[in-house]
């Protein structure tokens, strides 16, 4: 099955502005960076003991997923990988974001928005290896 992914400039732009708004709410409201890998890691492995706001942020994310399952299930896609592949990917994402100090939200959105050279380097790097990996999977016959 080969269904081409549709280019959706308007809904992607709209969703992106909401993401920007969300990060701005957290910054202006409580002075925090909406870097989700950092929020999750610090919630789970506690660096400064401020667990409540992190738990509530993550809960907010999860609840939208619950809502989507009920009201907009089409917005939830699946990964083409097997459960084993998803597990390997998860370990890589977890380890990589912890070492690299951020992910698409932390470096890509928040870091680039404040013109951080570190975040630019990080973003270009993960985009590059992401691209190489996606291409390699396709060449090796993986389902996309």
């Amino acid at each position, binding site marked *: 099955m080969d269904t081409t992914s549709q280019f959706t400039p308007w809904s*992607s732009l*709209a*969703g*992106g*502005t*909401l*993401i*920007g*708004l*969300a*990060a*701005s709410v*957290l*910054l*202006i*409201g409580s002075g925090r*960076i909406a870097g*989700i*890998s950092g929020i999750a*890691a610090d919630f789970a*492995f506690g660096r400064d003991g401020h667990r409540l706001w992190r738990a509530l*942020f993550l809960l*907010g*994310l*999860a*609840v*939208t997923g*619950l809502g989507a399952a009920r009201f*907009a299930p089409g*917005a*939830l*896609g*699946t990964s083409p990988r097997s*459960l084993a*592949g*998803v*597990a390997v*990917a*998860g*370990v890589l*994402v*977890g*380890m*990589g*974001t912890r*070492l*690299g100090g951020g*992910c*698409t939200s932390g470096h890509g959105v*928040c870091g680039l*928005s404040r013109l951080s*050279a*570190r975040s630019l380097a*990080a973003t270009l*790097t*993960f985009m590059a290896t992401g*691209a190489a990996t*996606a*291409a390699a*999977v396709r060449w090796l016959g993986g389902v996309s």
Partner: protein
Amino acid sequence: MTRRTQQGLVALLSGSIFGAGLLISGMTEPRKVIAFLDFSGAWDPSLAFVMLGAIVVHFGAYRVIQGRAPLWGDAYALPTARRIDGQLVIGSAIFGVGWGLAGYCPGPAIVAFGSGSIQALIFVLALLLGMFGGGKLSARAVRS
């Protein structure tokens, strides 16, 4: 209302808006993410528009906070690291591989987890494992 409660509510709001943004933007569709990353294949540029929308909005927030304290926070908790070091690059590279493999990064995975997805559950558990490992590696690097 205590500071902690205020910050908790801000975080809950931010997480909810963030999740809604991810769902509307298409980022909770791993195949769509992979189609963006795999630019040498049947490219779907949508993720670029997500980032554009987010950064344009969030860039403004950094202007807004100049000379102001957070509304309900004590101070800004902004990253202070400046050096583009090996750990940043290697970590980001590893993250990108995992992202390109499954099409999930932390935010969308948590939204999907909230929807009850078994794939997302596996990913999140693996994510935590990877983060734990990454934390150990990172601590060792700091010590030496």
